[in-house]
């Protein structure tokens, strides 16, 4: 593995992220809209005695959404690099395909985790306080789920040739992944078929892990759906599997 190459691939993404103010702005505005419009609207429908207030319940889901969108967006930029030729510059360098994939996955991890941290700092006012330990725990989970989703995004990017496919990915992969992740409603309340879909979605386990950290004593319908060990194991295993598939896909491309 070439650490210099991994470093510079991440540094490039970070630099571009900092420069694109609109990307940062929409990354913060989107969760705001969900929390205060969708969250506030739906919390009227849900009786307050079910446990965690709904607006708090969807907070882990909103973090998950932020990570999902920004990780996929970061990885899908490979399609742009392909279209504008920059990918060739990386492919002809004396750098292993594994380093390229890890560099790209870490790029998504860095920008997604930064955004998750901003949201975590900006939204203490929806009614809960986090201890420092909880804060660190959430950030660590965010980082690992970002890595897994970014690696998944690289796999997607290697399968699609042009940026016309971007809307296909958004509509048929990203949006369903969000809605079937336990972000908006507990997985245990879903109908059987949708529950199966949620169970094969890696994001579900990431959001579930965040719920464990934020609502440690919650029982009842709003409680986490899986054990913390299951959550962490799924995140780690999917990360490795996606990196491996992405590396294979890159090698096939030459």
């Amino acid at each position, binding site marked *: 593995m070439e650490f210099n190459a991994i470093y510079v691939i991440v540094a*490039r993404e970070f630099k571009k992220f900092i420069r694109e103010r609109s990307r940062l702005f929409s990354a913060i505005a989107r969760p705001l809209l969900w929390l205060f419009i969708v969250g506030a609207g739906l919390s009227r429908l849900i009786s307050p005695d079910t446990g965690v207030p709904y607006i708090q319940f969807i907070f882990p889901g909103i973090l998950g959404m932020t990570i999902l969108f920004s990780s996929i967006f970061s990885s899908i930029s490979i399609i742009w690099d392909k279209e504008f030729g920059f990918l060739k510059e990386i492919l002809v360098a004396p750098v292993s395909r594994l380093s390229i994939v890890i560099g790209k996955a870490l790029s998504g991890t860095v920008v997604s985790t930064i955004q998750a941290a901003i949201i975590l700092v900006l939204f203490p006012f929806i009614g809960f306080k986090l201890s420092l330990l909880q804060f660190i725990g959430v950030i660590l989970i965010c980082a690992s789920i970002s890595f897994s989703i970014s690696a998944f995004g690289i796999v997607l990017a290697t399968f699609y040739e042009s940026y016309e496919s971007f809307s296909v990915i958004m509509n048929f992969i990203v949006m369903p992944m969000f809605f079937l992740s336990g972000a908006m409603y507990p997985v245990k309340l879903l109908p059987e078929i949708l529950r199966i879909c949620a169970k094969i979605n890696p994001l579900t386990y990431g959001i579930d892990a965040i719920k464990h950290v934020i609502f440690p004593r919650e029982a009842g319908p709003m409680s986490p759906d899986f054990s913390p060990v299951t959550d962490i194991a799924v995140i780690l295993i999917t990360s490795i599997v996606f990196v491996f598939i992405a590396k294979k896909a890159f090698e096939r491309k030459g």
Partner: protein
Amino acid sequence: MSIIRVENLIKRFGNITAVNDISFEIEEGTIFGFLGPNGAGKTTTINILCTLLAPTSGKASINGHDCMKESSKVRKAIGIVFQDTTLDKDLTAAENLIFHAYLYNIAKDKMQERVDDVLRFVDLYDRKDDLVKKFSGGMKRRLEVARGLIHRPRVLFLDEPTLGLDPQSRTNLWEFIAELPEKHNVTIFMTTHYMEEAEVCDRIAIIDNGKIIAMGTPDELKKAVGGDVVYIKTTDNASAKKEIERLFRLDVSEKEGELYLTCVMGDTCIPEMIRTIGERVLSVRLQRPTLNDVFLKLTGKAIREEETSGMDTIKEEVRAYRRRH
């Protein structure tokens, strides 16, 4: 010493043979030109040499390393300027170069110095902190050449380096490329479909339909066409014609009041001719064959950009094929 060796290289995409059994060697420190129309197989050959594409059969090596088996060593030894720009337009010129320096694992203490050096060499030092999207086509191309040189490659590949540039930037770029072997101790492998540009090469291979149809120095190739044409105007064409024919034992023709003949060494024919016909000479001019004449003679067609439409379809097919596999 040969730095690039290619033996019986073949590359097929489905039933299209893009490179059809080519062999050549390139001497270190020279400029080697691959000349041919679009779609002749130039870029495919470069992609194989750059380890981006595996050949169907045959051998290719750079600096003694096999392009398929030792791709990492080959990659370290080469710099590439692709046909289409491969810069990140959202980064500055210096950032693009730093990115490259990291990819090629250049020691951190040398990085800044090397980046500044190549930027000065291509005359872009003053613009180093500008975003690449603000650059003109010529500046981008120069920046790419600079980037290709940072890691001190042994071979620099230039794939149609002047494509899409205005005539002035084109001339500038050529003057600049001609200096590279000496100043940076590299061997240049370039492709072009502009005949006049191939003149700077030490050796040229003419490629058509995936095959090398001629190889040699520009002068050797031109001689193969049959030599120079000398045009001469005199006060008495009829008598001059007879005398020149007797002198060289060559046929002299007449067109629009001007005599002309083809001879191997035009520049040495002229003095002799003038001595023979003396004061009857009104004007003399010499026309050397161009590489275009060479190509015309070898393939029966001129290299023209209009031919691209047909070739584009083939390129499309090749792309579609690669997508399926």
